[in-house]
């Protein structure tokens, strides 16, 4: 015998922790860790609901396996985007304000093509009187 309030309470706690992690972190990979916690809370709820004897079609287990697969696909894409962001901007800080007029500072310093861009030069002259 198991009382189902324990798994439900654990799922609620995991979802709350995940929401905290998504909002309170600045590093993009650590934000993803929060997303993983939320997904696992959903999985635990599915498994809990699927362990009742009247659950049809083995739905709890099967949908949990599907969610695990989708999470694997999601995190591979997300990490690819994060790696591209790191190469492009030199950091993965999600709270850093992007400078849309000139591009990121590291990028303009390293990339000579932006120097020849008249719009970028004009923006630089305006910002540095």
């Amino acid at each position, binding site marked *: 015998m198991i009382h189902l309030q324990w798994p*439900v309470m654990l799922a609620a706690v995991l*979802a709350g922790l995940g929401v905290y992690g998504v909002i309170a*972190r600045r590093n993009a990979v650590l934000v*993803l860790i*929060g997303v993983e*916690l939320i997904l696992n809370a959903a*999985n635990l709820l599915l498994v809990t609901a699927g362990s009742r004897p009247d659950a049809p079609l083995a739905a709890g287990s099967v949908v949990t396996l*599907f969610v695990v697969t989708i999470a694997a696909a999601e995190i591979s*894409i997300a990490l690819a985007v994060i790696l591209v962001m790191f190469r492009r901007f030199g950091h993965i800080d999600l709270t850093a304000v992007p400078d849309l007029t000139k591009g990121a500072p590291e990028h303009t310093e390293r990339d000579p093509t932006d120097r020849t861009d008249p719009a970028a030069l004009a923006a630089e002259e305006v910002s540095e009187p």
Partner: protein
Amino acid sequence: MTTRDIVFVVVGVITALSGLLAVSTRHVVHAALWLLVCLGSLAGCYIVLGQELVGIVQLLVYVGAIVVLVLFALMLTRAPIGPQPDIDAPVWQRVVAALLGAATTALVAAATLPVIGQQSVDLDTPVVTTQQIASAIFGTWVWPFELLSVLLLVALVGAFAVSRVVLARRSRS
């Protein structure tokens, strides 16, 4: 409290504490390692709940693949060793995050505890056997299953394309 209750509470406390450390530690790599502990003990929770197949898949996919991917991403983004003061948002945002997290916990608990939280299940005779899961996947759920294989292929190609396209554009310019 039955034996299963006690075992689940012990494993669940480990899961919740390691999850708390994963979202609150200031060491970047430690966060990924605490996530590993959290997901591993969550697999234990699944096994206590009588779903061995889901627990083993959780171990294989999450602990074996996803945490390793996260660790690789941390390495490739030059994760610094040691405590970092700047990986957390400012204090007011953390307070808001804690409030929202507590609100989420309260919401999920209030929505699901009255529905399935009052029941108690006898798991000593298995409710769903692995054979039933297999026949359900390849019977009722076969089209979602096939779609998932396509989704995995698209994710593979997409992850490759995202990094290659940006690299090619930078080398061209």
